[in-house]
């Protein structure tokens, strides 16, 4: 027997690689089909429970009724969704400007940070549901009041994550910039902001969900007078009328909105980081 008999088999990929590829394909399919399957199953079960137990629709409507409400009341719900979306997105934008702006200010001035940071924390830990009624007493304009509510909940994650990010610069890189005589502005713009970007985006994802929560809370507290009703106000209103189907329809739209915001921010985060950041790197096994 010569050593040559042990020469490698001339397969293009080895067995392990083939198995791994197959597993990856299966996983890829399962990732989308499984959740859909679960949803179909849940809706079917929901329908059966309503039918079998003959539950009246003003207690629990079947999925068919909810769907009918979703399509039948579409013009009302769509308008409400637009309003809620407007509050949410505006609040998120203001949260980014306020949160990131404050973080930069805190980073530039230790004194400002020491003076203001505790109050940012107090604002954050006080439940917005408790602050909201007061806000609507003092703020005449409902839109402004709602924005303020949503902003209060959403800005803190942006502030705290960006603050952490701005501090997390590699200390050798910081020294390098100093040695090359970088100005404060250059250091902020070319070193600290890029370093803080992954942290900021993490905070942004949380803020996206929170601004929706803030908008919903604001609507519930503000009531429908004046600016028209958003989705949460529609839920409340439908509840008074025992129109449970519409409550479910509006609720599903809020949930869809939340999912959309999260997905959009995830895409944004991937687009900004995938070239260089470790979090966006795919590795084998």
């Amino acid at each position: 027997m010569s050593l040559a008999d042990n020469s490698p088999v001339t397969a293009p990929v080895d067995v392990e690689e083939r198995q791994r590829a197959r597993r990856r394909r299966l996983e890829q399919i399962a990732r989308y089909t499984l959740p859909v399957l679960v949803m179909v199953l849940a809706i079917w079960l929901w329908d059966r429970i309503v039918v079998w137990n003959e539950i009246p629709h003003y207690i629990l409507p079947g999925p068919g009724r909810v769907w009918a409400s979703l399509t039948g009341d579409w013009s009302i719900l769509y308008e409400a969704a637009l309003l809620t979306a407007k509050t949410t997105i505006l609040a998120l934008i203001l949260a980014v400007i306020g949160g990131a702006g404050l973080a930069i200010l805190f980073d530039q001035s230790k004194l400002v940070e020491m003076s203001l940071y505790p109050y940012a924390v107090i604002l954050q830990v006080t439940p917005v549901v408790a602050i909201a009624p007061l806000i609507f007493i003092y703020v005449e304009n409902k839109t402004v009041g709602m924005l303020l509510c949503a902003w209060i909940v959403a800005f803190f994650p942006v502030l705290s994550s960006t603050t952490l990010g701005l501090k997390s610069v590699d200390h050798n890189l910081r020294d390098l910039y100093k040695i090359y005589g970088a100005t404060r502005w250059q250091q902020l713009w070319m070193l600290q902001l890029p370093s803080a970007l992954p942290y900021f985006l993490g905070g942004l994802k949380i803020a996206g969900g929170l601004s929706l929560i803030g908008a919903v809370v604001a609507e519930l507290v503000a009531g429908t007078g004046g600016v028209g009703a958003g989705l949460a106000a529609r839920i409340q209103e439908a509840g008074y009328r025992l129109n449970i189907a519409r409550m479910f329809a509006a609720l599903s739209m809020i949930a869809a909105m939340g999912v959309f915001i999260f997905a959009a921010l995830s895409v944004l985060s991937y687009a900004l980081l995938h070239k260089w950041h470790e979090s966006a790197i795919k590795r084998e096994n």
Partner: protein
Amino acid sequence: MLQTTPLDSRPPVLRMAGINKTFGRDVVALDGMTLSVNHGDFISLLGPSGCGKSTALRLISGLISPTAGRIEWAGGQSQDDLGIVFQEPTLMPWATVVENVYLPFRLRRQPYGSVKDEILEVLRLVGLEQFQNAYPRELSGGMKMRVSIARAMATHPRLILMDEPFAALDEITRHKLNNDLLELKAKIGCTVIFVTHSVWESVFLSDRIIVMAARPGRVIEELHVDAPYPRGEEFRTSAEYAGYCRATSDALHRAMGDR
């Protein structure tokens, strides 16, 4: 102890006299360090952990100031004209190789167009021109270190400080980078202060080795390696090299107090 003529006609770059650096009340990182650096020198600082090697580099680079003593730069030049290489490659992960090497120029507001040729030339010298648009995470440890060296040399500084740049690399990569560093230094014509833990590395690279001791950090001996440059593999395997290594090793043992 090896001694040679300190007689030297090359222009001075830097002189440290009686430098003391004390952190807090009683952590004496460096005590009475005196060192003159002339143009073209390759000086190694060699010594056990905690003997103040990094502190010496940080003092020279102006990141910290001495508790006592003076650092004088020749001809009014100052630490602006420095390149530095750390133990980690210290690249900006969000920037490509070219952008990383462009950094020192960019901080001095020199437009990319005016220094593009210099940057590409130094990337060619470190053998990374095909990787100019790669991000650091796509490079191996050795390649990242080459980028870091390219960045330090790109501006043709009068003095380059290196703090254990190859300590985290494997032996093979390290030898290769040692060879390349000497070649680069000859081509660019700079002066280097190099911190290392390795006797073999310091002898191969330097013409002067400063042996230091810890607690308090201080200079114990200065050795001269009189082998001519360029040095290559034949020097690494020569009896002369072995002799210098033994002498340096002995000095290091004396510095560590177990003669």
